[in-house]
């Protein structure tokens, strides 16, 4: 049986290097381009119909936009709509990466810690930059929660510092681990199906089908959580406490 981690290995398709940096094009890069193209095509096609009675594609696009707007207004309030382009791009990219990754033979870009890590760190860095640009040095006050008694401050500052530093890590690891684990389980179960043959193979195959449905839900929920947390962190930066 194949190693279930085998599908996560990347090999350069087009070896490229720029000033000694390895920028080879591999399957993950290819899938990312496909994802960007899919999102663009969906929204351009949906926009071009633009009728009062929405077509199927248009109502899908409207549903997605409405969903993202709901998330932003719930977590950041009305003034969070400034960040709508960023948040929607993030949500749609992660959602489509997760969904495209479920097509057999494709590649789950979000199962690479590099990808999720870059997203998480840049989102977190942006929230810190927003915090300092809106509140100046007073933003350091997030390290001391309001109502902390004086003698607790030396204990609360390291705790708050750790909980701040944990944010990008939990953001990156959550998405990466959920996607990787789901695909490993699917891989193992499908391996069992093939190993089991006709006599017993139907049992793991039934589980594969059931888990595939679960993974569809997970793909959506993970994109949703990543977006919600992005909004929460940015909202915290705009209105601390």
């Amino acid at each position: 049986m194949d190693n279930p981690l085998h599908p996560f290995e990347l090999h350069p398709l087009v070896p490229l290097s720029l000033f000694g940096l390895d920028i080879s094009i591999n399957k993950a890069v290819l899938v990312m381009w496909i994802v960007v193209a899919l999102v663009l095509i969906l929204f351009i096609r949906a926009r071009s119909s633009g009728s009062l009675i929405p077509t199927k594609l248009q109502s899908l696009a409207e549903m997605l936009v409405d969903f993202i707007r709901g998330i932003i207004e719930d977590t950041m309030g009305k003034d969070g709509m400034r960040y709508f382009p960023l948040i929607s791009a993030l949500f749609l990219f992660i959602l489509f990466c997760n969904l495209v990754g479920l097509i057999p033979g494709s590649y789950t870009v979000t199962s690479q810690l590099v990808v999720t890590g870059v997203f998480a760190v840049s989102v977190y860095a942006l929230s810190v930059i927003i915090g300092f640009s809106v509140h100046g040095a007073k933003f350091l006050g997030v390290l001391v929660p309001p109502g902390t008694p004086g003698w607790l401050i030396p204990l609360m500052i390291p705790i708050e510092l750790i909980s701040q530093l944990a944010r990008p890590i939990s953001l990156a690891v959550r998405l990466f681990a959920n996607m990787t684990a789901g695909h490993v389980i699917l891989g193992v179960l499908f391996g069992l199906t093939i190993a089991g043959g006709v006599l017993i193979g139907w049992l793991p195959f039934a589980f594969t089908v059931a888990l595939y449905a679960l993974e569809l839900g997970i793909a959506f929920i993970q994109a949703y959580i990543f977006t919600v947390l992005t909004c929460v962190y940015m909202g915290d930066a705009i209105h601390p406490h």
Partner: protein
Amino acid sequence: MAPSQDPLFAGLGQAIRVGTDLLAALIVGGFLGWLIDTYVFDSAPWAMVIGLFLGLGAGIRNAYRTAQRWKT
């Protein structure tokens, strides 16, 4: 009702959040302690032990803060 307000969906999202929040803070605390042990004070393993406890506190604090946002 917007799907983001769907109680089942939002509840599932929050449940997945809390678990990783607890764990990530613990990892960060332990790692920071280990860094101090190895590169600053040569005090192994005490800074890591303190870091793990602080991380545990930070994780619980994170989960508590998440729970405060829950609308009943």
